[in-house]
């Protein structure tokens, strides 16, 4: 019985489970598991000097050692601990704040709408990287402050998206029926409007996980995110750039970012094609 149910479930999502989506999911799964379990199987301590400095890759140190004699492979795997949870936290916070404000704006209209949307307009007037840099610089370096800066940059996208959705859904029959049956405004918003609006937000958010990993790495690369000795991917590439001829220092973190972003993009693409067949073939 149970087996049959899984099969029919698989059949239902047949169009979603394309090869890129499966590859993307496997990549993300690998990194999530690594982030959760790395302490149990790390080859070396990521913060300790374990060998001579600037050693090229060998069987002992798969990705060589960095300028302080730390094992680059262990540091790369540990990087998942920072990039992935922070990217997820940032996107989830941005989605929550943005879509709540957007939904309230679209739903209540009047001055609340005006106020929220002007705030959105001003925030979106900044080129994202410059706003993130300014906010992160004002708050001071560190991963926490970089995350705050990223949420500040990101929430308006979701506010705008959610507002447009809410305006459209508000006119639908089931909402009118709910109003006619006299439900409260809060219930109307949370039970009858928000759940219907989720699809585009979900697709956008999946794509944005990857973008968040990139932005975090960029901020760290500039020197505003992770501070030494944190094994964060962007900061590691920045160290690699200082020791330019020792190419292996930046190799691991760069490939890791590429894989994670690619993985999220594959999944996001798949979700978009699945929910909106117009853009696929």
């Amino acid at each position, binding site marked *: 019985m149970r087996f049959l149910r899984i099969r029919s479930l698989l059949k239902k999502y047949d169009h979603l489970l394309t090869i890129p989506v499966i590859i993307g999911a496997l990549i993300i799964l690998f990194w999530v598991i690594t982030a959760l379990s790395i302490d149990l199987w790390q080859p070396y301590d990521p913060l300790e000097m374990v060998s001579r400095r600037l050693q090229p890759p060998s069987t002992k140190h798969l990705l060589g050692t960095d300028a302080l004699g730390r094992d680059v492979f262990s540091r790369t795997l540990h990087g998942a601990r920072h990039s992935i949870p922070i990217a997820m936290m940032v996107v989830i916070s941005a989605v929550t704040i943005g879509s709540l404000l957007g939904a309230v704006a679209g739903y209540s209209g009047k001055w609340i709408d005006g106020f929220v949307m002007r705030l959105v307009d001003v925030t979106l007037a900044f*080129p994202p990287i410059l706003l993130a*840099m300014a906010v992160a610089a*004002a708050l001071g370096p560190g991963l926490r402050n970089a995350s705050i800066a990223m949420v500040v940059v990101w929430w308006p996208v979701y506010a705008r998206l959610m507002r447009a959705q809410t305006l459209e859904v508000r006119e639908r029959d089931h909402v009118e029926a709910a109003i006619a049956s006299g439900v409260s405004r809060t219930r109307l918003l949370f039970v009858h409007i928000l759940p219907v609006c989720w699809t585009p937000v979900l697709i956008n958010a999946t794509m944005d996980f990857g973008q968040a990993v990139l932005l975090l790495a960029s901020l760290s690369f500039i020197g505003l995110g992770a501070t030494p000795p944190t094994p964060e991917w962007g900061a590691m*590439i920045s160290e690699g750039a200082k020791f330019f001829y020792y190419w292996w220092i930046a190799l691991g973190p760069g490939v890791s970012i590429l894989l994670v972003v*690619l993985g999220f993009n594959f999944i996001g693409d798949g979700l978009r094609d699945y929910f909106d067949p117009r853009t696929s073939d």
Partner: protein
Amino acid sequence: MLRYIIRRLLAIPLLVFGVVTICFFLAHNIKGDPLSSLLSFRQLGNPEIVAATKARWGLDKSLPEQYFIYIKNLLAGDFGTSFRTRRPVLEDIADRLPATLELAIVSLVIGSLAGIFLGMLAAYYRNQLIDDGARLFALIGSSMPVFWSGLILLFIFSVKLQILPGPGRLDPVTDIPPYVTGMFTIDSLLAGDIDKFLDAVRHMILPAFVMAWSMMGIISRIVRASMLDVLNQEYILTARSKGARELRVIMNHALRNVMIPTLTIIGFSFAYLITGAVLVETIFSWPGVGYYAVSSTRALDFPAIIGVTIIGATAFLVTNLVTDISYAFANPKIRLGR
């Protein structure tokens, strides 16, 4: 249409004002004391020097006062003085703008042409190996941090293969061409110096390619989708049944209609260009506005950070407006509908 343009134009000064206000208060709520970027540790211990420096930079006044002075100066075109270079921020930016523009224009041209080409290729060979290959190539470009791809390409082509020069705009031993536009390729051509021109071009290949590659993903995706849409239209069938050659069908009939969505997306890639300028210039030691922004940020030089941000945001707003308007003009459905 006209009303729409006027409304959008009127909004720009208000938005810029909002941007300025946010920037100002960000800069004045910093944890790191701006004085620490102005004075040495020993000087910070001397109250007289601290007081004099505060007075010199206007830091002794109250916050609202400083805000009004800043706005007043901005209106007069004065963005303040950089803590780091001790020069007016606007001059600093103006000096570095040509380098950024030169790189950005070349990147934009390469990125759009390659993106359009890849998108059309993918659409034409839909669901075949070429389609997958083109899409994957574009996607990889936008999934890599540009500062890393730049680093790796620099290592491969400059250090290992030694066929392209290292960072910078010209060979260190060459002196810069006489100033006309500030763009070394144009200036060296104007001076009739072909060798210098080729040197400038060779220095631009890697950074421009890295920036272009990061834009190809989004451009080729839109081109592919709209191309698929267009290729299914009846007038394409008509053109084919008239016996038009395939290349003509694509170039004459299909491409024109694909251009409308492409135009918008190229406008949107301005954000990519700014991100690219900041990160690519840093890794390639390209002395442009992006590199300036990063160095200022690292030094907590707030007048400079705010200046770059305000100018960047204004340029961003104007580009978005131009994109929206040209989109409306290019699309008869919108132009005639309103």
